């Protein structure tokens, strides 16, 4: 089936000029411009959609920060939309804000931008395939995001507002609509949206796995794959194995809410004088199921960035990746261990404390592959010939920030310390260092790096660096401070914590963080302007503007339909930079071997 559906756009292309005299039906317009099956277009569709959501999520975060810094004061701009009677942000709206900030950022930005946008765009290009294995499925994986977009977007405007039980959606707060305004229609829409995101990811991951396994160019062995592809491959595996659990759990919660099954509500638990369901369930069951997906999801959210950063860094250090195989194994190790550490989100949840010990050990162990990766990145920089392009700066900052995010994780893995810092801003600092300072920086790096391939033009380097500099400064101003707030025990998710004497004096510090956050969002305007300007007016890029090695750089920029005008044949791995005896400092994967050149075994 896939062959048939795939070939149709190709055929129509060749037929089009001949039939130009005859007006084409609307369906052609749709299949060319909207329901495209070209992996690059789908990737860009993902990219644009997620960037819009990135903006929305960022604004939500600003509103959250505003309330944390100056509780109950009028929120500028956004306040117009959602203020309660009297112009102030109501606490239920605040809970909705941080819930939707997390939801949007995780499910509509990070996961789709990594797997959806870059996965789609890069996988066929980097392995030398003309398209994905299942183009229709691929198209569907994008369009299945739309019900999710609509569900999440619409949920803001239904009665009671959007979901407001945190992105973790812990029952019974979520299973009983009487528990919170956002647990009404908003939560149902949240679950529906989540399901569609899941379907989309699943379609994507099936496609990626098949494509990577079956459609590599001649000579492209598994151990000649760039790290990006390895990361995408393992991410796809993670998704394929973890997602069904979340989807099942989501349906269970939906049933709890709609037909009173009571998977997650215990016997006789009352909310607002209404029974929470049939009983016989356990709230902790949801936590287990949810984190069984969502902990691996944390790696889904960073592994592709790690892969892309490895590729960018080798290119601009002009040096082979230090320890290619250990890097691959550590990604696999992170993924494998990722399945057995979910309990560290639940140390104080009421789960058997003995389980806490085992999860603590496995969690400590996951620091290993992360450490290996960090050291190997440092090793890659060592002895390199570093070019400070914007993409490189973002990649280096990824490593720098990932060190912070990784190390702060050890505090939480230590169960006794976790008793104190659980659910405080220490956690917030930790995951923002991993997901924002880590992944988002990686994503920016990747955008600057592959932009020429996407649009045939390069982004402005000067403004790119300004963007990097400001983002880097503000990001650390915002998130590093959170560590010490966490050390005071400042809890997450409080609309107003200052009536607690313990936290009363932290307001100025929060105000500082909010100023930084505002700066951080504001300087994204530079990025947006640069992005759109360069798309049309940026300097034209050739096929290989960075003198990089990957297969994608052998295709035209931007690649046409079918990607390669010449069948790429792969002779070596992707990191052969500065090969002794070679005239240029890079040796592309497709460059035929030259007599006498010394290249490492793989």
């Amino acid at each position, binding site marked *: 089936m896939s062959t048939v559906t795939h070939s149709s756009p190709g055929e129509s292309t060749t037929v089009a000029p001949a039939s130009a005299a005859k007006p084409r039906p609307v369906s052609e317009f749709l299949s060319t411009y909207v329901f495209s099956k070209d992996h690059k277009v789908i990737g860009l569709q993902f990219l644009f959609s997620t960037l819009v959501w990135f903006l929305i999520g960022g604004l939500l975060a600003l509103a959250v920060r505003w309330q944390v810094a100056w509780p109950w004061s009028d929120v500028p701009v956004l306040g117009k939309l959602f203020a309660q009677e009297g112009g102030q942000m109501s606490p239920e709206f605040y*809970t909705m804000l941080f819930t939707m900030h997390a939801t949007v950022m995780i499910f509509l930005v990070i996961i789709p931008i990594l797997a959806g946008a870059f996965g789609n765009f890069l996988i066929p290009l980097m392995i030398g395939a003309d398209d994905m294995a299942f183009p229709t499925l691929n198209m569907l994986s994008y369009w299945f995001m739309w019900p999710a977009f609509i569900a999440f977007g619409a949920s803001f405007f239904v009665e009671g507002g959007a979901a407001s039980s945190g992105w973790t959606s*812990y029952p*019974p*707060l979520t299973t009983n609509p009487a528990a919170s305004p956002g647990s009404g229609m908003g939560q149902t829409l949240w679950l529906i949206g989540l399901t569609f995101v899941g379907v989309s990811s699943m379609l994507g991951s099936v496609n990626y796995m098949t494509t990577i396994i079956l459609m590599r160019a001649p000579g492209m062995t598994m151990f000649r794959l760039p790290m990006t592809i390895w990361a995408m491959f393992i991410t796809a595996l993670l998704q394929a194995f973890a997602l069904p659990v979340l989807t099942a759990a989501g349906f269970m919660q939906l049933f709890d809410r709609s037909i009173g099954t009571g998977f997650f*509500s215990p016997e006789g638990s009352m909310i*607002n004088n209404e029974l*929470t369901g049939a009983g016989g369930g*356990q709230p902790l069951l949801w936590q287990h199921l949810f984190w069984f997906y969502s902990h691996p999801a944390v790696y889904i959210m960073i592994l592709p960035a790690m892969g892309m950063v490895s590729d960018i860094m080798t290119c601009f*250090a*002009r040096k082979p*990746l230090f320890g*290619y*195989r*250990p890097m691959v194994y550590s990604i696999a190790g992170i993924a494998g261990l990722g399945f057995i550490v979910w309990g560290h989100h639940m140390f*104080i949840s*009421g789960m058997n404390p*003995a389980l*806490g*010990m085992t999860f603590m*050990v496995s969690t*400590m162990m996951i620091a290993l592959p992360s450490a*290996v990766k*960090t*050291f190997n990145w440092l090793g890659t*920089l*060592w*002895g*390199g*010939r*570093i*070019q*400070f392009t914007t993409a490189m700066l973002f990649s280096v900052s990824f490593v*720098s920030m990932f*060190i*912070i995010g990784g190390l702060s994780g050890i*505090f939480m*893995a*230590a169960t*006794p*310390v976790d008793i*104190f810092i659980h*659910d*405080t801003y220490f956690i917030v600092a930790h995951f923002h260092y991993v997901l924002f300072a880590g992944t988002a920086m990686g994503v920016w790096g990747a955008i600057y790096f592959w932009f020429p391939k996407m649009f045939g033009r390069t982004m402005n380097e000067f403004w790119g660096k300004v963007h990097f500099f400001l983002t*880097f400064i503000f990001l650390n101003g915002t998130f590093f401070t959170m*560590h010490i*707030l966490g*050390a005071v*025990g400042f809890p*997450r998710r409080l*609309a*107003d914590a200052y*009536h*607690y004497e*313990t*936290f009363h004096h932290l307001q100025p510090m929060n105000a500082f963080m909010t100023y930084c956050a505002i700066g951080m969002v504001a300087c994204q305007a530079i990025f947006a302007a640069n992005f759109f300007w360069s798309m049309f007016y940026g300097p034209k890029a050739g096929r290989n503007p960075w003198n990089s090695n990957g297969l994608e750089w052998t295709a035209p920029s931007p690649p046409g339909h079918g990607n390669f005008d010449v069948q790429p044949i792969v002779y070596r791995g992707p990191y052969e*930079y*500065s*090969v*002794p005896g070679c005239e240029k400092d890079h040796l592309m994967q497709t460059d035929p071997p030259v007599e006498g050149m010394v290249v*490492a075994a793989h």
Partner: protein
Amino acid sequence: MRNRLAGIFWSILFLAVPVLGVGVFAIAPSIDVWLPKDVSSHGKEIDSLFYFILALTGIVFIVTEMLLFWFIWKYDAAARGDEKATYIHGSHTLEVIWTIIPAVTMLFLAIYQMNAWADMKMRRPVMKPTVEVVARQFEWRLRYPGPDGDLGTPDDLFLVNDLHVPVDEDILIQLKSMDVLHSFFLPNLRMKQDAVPGMKIPVWFKATETGQYDLVCAELCGWGHYKMKGRITIESREDYDAWLEAKYREQEATQPEPMDEIL
């Protein structure tokens, strides 16, 4: 040469990360943005473990960030002239070293703290509950067992939000939730435990100093989560008994109290 300046600029930016990072943690205690005062017997263990991990991660943090800085400072293309990058694919020895050292450290860390964890969450003191705390949206309902020491008898004392415990004694709290998840968080006693509907979870600690401290809800429990504020009063045995007695008398009132007592 302009390129070299750029390299210096960016290297220093990355140098700022460890410098300012360590700086923030060094200054924080002096501006009172640091661990709140500990008044529990087990808190010292948590704090010392926190400091231990802080030192450990601090060292790793400084070393790796300094290496990062040094590499981008030194291996800037502009600084290397015509020299090519080193053509090296890795080092087996190094990989082994930097796998084993963290592994050993991490294992040590995990085993080192197991005892502390067991003390705080697994080795429950054998005694009747001092008080039952029932969390609900958005308050802490307290039930003291009354003179007979048993919960669920007519002499139970019912209170709200205002938790009192005697100092220097083992306290066993029976934690429940009526509706959704809550978390019983005493920052000054380094104690946190989720309250789960349908479960009776024991929480124990021993307070070492008298005083009044915050009782915070740390698990999102709905729109009013932020206002679910309680207070713990740690007082001497005599004061505690007198307080219990007074509260019990109040609960058994058969005549109105004078107005000034209510206000």
